[in-house]
């Protein structure tokens, strides 16, 4: 096989989007989940995502997509050149999966944890070779957004950094490497801001639409913070805020009542068809 196999563990929103990005750039992917239903949904979403990437010119024209294999067997990642772990942002889940991944792959195979804020060095305790572990924070949808935050843990080796940067460049991303800290750069800035935006709506200062419109029109935000919340997934956002709050003590990171209420109602954003906004999607057909 000429092209390096990329293993992606976790077929949720991020694992699906990253799989779309990788196959869309011509590399083969093995996508693992513990649930067949998640893999089936991911396969549909990846095909839709490839079309979306083509529509918006986000995918190199004329590239034959790499092969996508889905599996319930984690052991199928053994031959991967790089593993990307993209399971739920819950430390227990990440610990279990990273330990299992690290027991299966070859020595020094880079293991990327895709996280919006869990410090890489906390996760390094769970793998055999902490030097091979590195973090990424892909934005959603990963196949449309050209930039990726890369987090180098204090023990991450130069070799791991170089291999991962070269893989990201190969799939058309522009990486920016930052040091390890809760929330790194983007989540540390964005998540409390979205949380405040929800508070502003909850307090009745302005409507959802007006908050987003002001952030777009006055401050140059591309979509507005509440549309961004819908894109992230409000449940994932709440998880990430709780992780940030636990590690920084910053009260701005304590999930606001409106976000918690949205999660209780199952209004999780784009993926559920409704969050702060309503969405027309294939899910409604």
């Amino acid at each position, binding site marked *: 096989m000429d092209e390096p196999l990329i293993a992606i563990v976790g077929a949720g929103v991020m694992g699906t989007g990253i799989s779309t990005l990788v196959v869309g750039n011509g590399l083969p992917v093995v996508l693992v989940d513990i649930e067949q239903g998640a893999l089936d949904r991911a396969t549909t979403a990846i095909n839709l995502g490839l*079309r979306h990437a083509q*529509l*918006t010119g986000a995918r190199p024209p004329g590239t034959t997509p790499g092969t996508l294999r889905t599996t319930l067997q984690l052991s199928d990642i053994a031959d991967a050149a790089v593993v990307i772990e993209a399971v739920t942002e819950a430390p227990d889940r990440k610990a279990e999966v990273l330990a299992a991944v690290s027991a299966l792959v070859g020595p020094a195979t880079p293991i990327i944890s895709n996280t919006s804020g869990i410090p890489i060095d906390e996760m390094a305790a769970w793998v055999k070779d902490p030097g091979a572990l590195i973090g990424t924070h892909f934005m959603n949808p990963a196949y449309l957004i050209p930039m990726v935050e890369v987090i180098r843990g204090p023990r991450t080796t130069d070799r791991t950094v170089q291999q991962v940067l070269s893989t990201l460049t190969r799939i058309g991303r522009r990486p920016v490497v930052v040091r390890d800290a809760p929330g790194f750069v983007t989540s540390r800035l964005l998540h409390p801001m979205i949380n405040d935006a929800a508070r502003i709506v909850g307090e009745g200062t302005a409507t959802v*639409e007006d908050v987003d419109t002001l952030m777009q029109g006055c401050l140059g935000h591309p979509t507005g913070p509440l549309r961004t919340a819908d894109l992230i997934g409000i449940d994932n956002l709440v998880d990430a805020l709780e992780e940030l709050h636990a590690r920084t003590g910053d009260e701005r990171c304590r999930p606001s009542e409106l976000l918690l209420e949205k999660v209780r109602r199952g209004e999780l954003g784009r993926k559920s068809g409704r969050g702060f906004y309503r*969405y*027309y*999607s294939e899910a409604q057909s």
Partner: protein
Amino acid sequence: MTAEHTSASFDTDAVIDRITRFVAEQTSTTPDTDQDLFATGLANSMFAMQLVVFLEQTYAVTVAGPDLQLSNFRTVKSMAALVGRLQAQPAAGSDV
């Protein structure tokens, strides 16, 4: 090319009306039929795919290959023309 040239039974006005209503529902703004939805900020790259899915499901067409480009979705009129053209064609494969 307009839809009337390719399909006599195709009701362009009805399609334009239906697409306009969809965009209005989704964006809370009723667009002019010639308005560039992307240039005027009514649509973004995420909404673009919702437009594709909406047209495919509403009109039982498949937008694939070279048709899958933003220029076909810029205005209500261009979308209606695409639907007219695709409905006039025999069903093609749905590969990207």
